[in-house]
């Protein structure tokens, strides 16, 4: 184990512990995410996957641990990081339009006080095209299906134009067509050399979709390249005896 963080790694986590009330939700997590790859975080419900993303992004307090992005602190690297939360974390009855939500991804580049203008609208429109939602740009977000909501969030993340993305279950509850569309976007990001960290639930597809795998259940059970990590032994240790390797 090296004592200095590796500048090329998009994400490095050391000794991360998160405690809600008295119960540790994440315990002594060490993690190194390789650059330019699609990386999956997999584990049972309540394993702490969402909490890991939030703790890394400073959205929940951590009891201990250090986090580096590209060898920098969160504050320094903020503009290079994009986050797609779980869909149900926002109020979809909020009075705003699809295009407006996508433009929120550009607020970080605008900074305080500056308002989005024509340039931002065009950029947001371009991101909506990448998820094939341009026709719904002016729709109220209350009138979207679950899969469309997910794609709006994805478009918003694209607008952030980050180098490292965190996505919390983007494939949850979407149909095959939307799943394919999201996958296309992920591959597009990868081909631009970006790193994407995705919380994923489906053991059947995880091997096909991702290059790198982290198995999590409060602790990191295993983390590494897909072929080495996706073993029945590791899955058993993550999920207990019932887990299947998915063929």
């Amino acid at each position, binding site marked *: 184990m090296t004592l200095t963080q590796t500048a090329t790694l998009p994400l490095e986590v050391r000794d991360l512990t998160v405690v809600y009330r008295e119960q540790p939700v994440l315990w002594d997590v060490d993690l190194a995410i390789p650059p330019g790859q699609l990386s999956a975080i997999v584990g049972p419900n309540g394993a702490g996957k969402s909490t890991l993303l939030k703790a890394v992004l*400073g959205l929940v307090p951590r009891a201990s641990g250090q986090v580096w992005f590209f060898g920098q602190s969160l504050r320094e690297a903020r503009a290079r*990081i994009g986050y797609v939360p779980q869909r149900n974390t926002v109020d979809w009855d909020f*009075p705003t339009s699809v295009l407006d939500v996508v433009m929120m991804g550009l607020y970080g580049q605008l900074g305080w006080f500056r308002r989005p203008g024509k340039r931002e609208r065009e950029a947001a429109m371009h991101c909506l095209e990448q998820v094939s939602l341009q026709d719904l740009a002016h729709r109220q977000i209350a009138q979207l299906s679950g899969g469309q909501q997910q794609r709006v969030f994805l478009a918003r993340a694209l607008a952030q134009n980050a180098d490292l993305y965190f996505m919390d279950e983007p494939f949850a509850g979407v149909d095959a067509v939307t799943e394919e569309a999201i996958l296309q976007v992920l591959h597009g990001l990868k081909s631009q050399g970006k790193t994407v960290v995705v919380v994923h639930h489906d053991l059947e597809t995880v091997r096909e979709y991702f290059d790198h795998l982290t198995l999590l259940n409060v602790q990191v059970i295993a983390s590494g390249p897909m072929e080495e990590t996706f073993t029945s032994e590791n899955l058993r240790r993550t999920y207990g005896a019932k887990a299947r390797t998915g063929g």
Partner: protein
Amino acid sequence: MNPDLVIVTTAILVSSASALVGTFLVLRRMALLCDAISHAVLPGIVLAYWLSGGARATLPALLGAAAAGLVTVSLVEWLTRTGRVKNDAAIGIVFPALFSLGVLAVSLYFRQVHLDLDAVLYGEIAYAPLNTLWLWGLELPESWLVMGLLTLLNLLFVLLFYKELKLSTFDAGLAASLGFAPGVLHYALMALVSFTAVGAFQSVGAILIVAFLIIPPATAYLLTRRLPTMLLLAVGVGVVASLGGYALAIWLDASIAGMMATVAGVCFALAFLFSPLEGFLTTRLRRRRQRLEVAARLLVAHLAHHPQPVSEQEIMAEFGWHPRFLRQAREKALQAGWLEARREGLWPTSRGRALGQGPSVP
């Protein structure tokens, strides 16, 4: 100075200032917290009153109230964060506690002083023209100065931080990860709510201020799905309530602030029933129309399948319709041009027959 003018303009200022910050409270689902703040400012006012030696002083009262408001918000958040009490329960614990402190303090120490409980609870906007101060050689109502400044402050806050407020209200997680300090904005908003509550309490009292903070934005929320429109409508409803409430209060010789709150409530009820978006009655009417439309399509499709005219009895038996419903469905189909009335009975037109090709939902 014309007292009517002073009262009405004061009310308009109170409702505008309230609607601006109230909109974000409603969107953050914090209406209950605003109730708590408006009550909990009482001990702050009393404390400030006591510290400033019993003089009628607006500035110390404002500061004391804002402090009390922030204490309320912090206590509620702290209680919620311990995870042992739910948010609504935390509010229900904090605000009676602080409010009762205020009531006790008033009744124990200020029995003889000019700070009577009724005025604190219900306010008296009718006195607004009597409290005046001299400024630049002009005798101005104090309420104009206080509420004018507060309206301006809230307006500036919403205009300057519109983008940041919108983002942190919709998705605090993203706001934080983009570095927009949603926590700071949250407390700033709460401070302004406290300011507004206390600035307005002389006019409308601690209880009715909630009607001004919550009802106009809640009404606007029913009427639009755009945030800028919602802000404008909320202010508009506040103005309507001020004008209408005053007129009615004079006419019926009733409490002015109470009448204004009532008119605001009536606005809400109207929006609830008749909103073009999802009004209770509008939705029912729309559903009925849609049901009729489906029935008309069924009828046309049924007729198109039969070479001979079909009797009404047969149709009613087939679909289990009442005669009245059949009449309405037939009327609808005739209007849409799917059926035509010939001497031998009803016939599907070519458009009606085209309908039968498949369920094409517009």
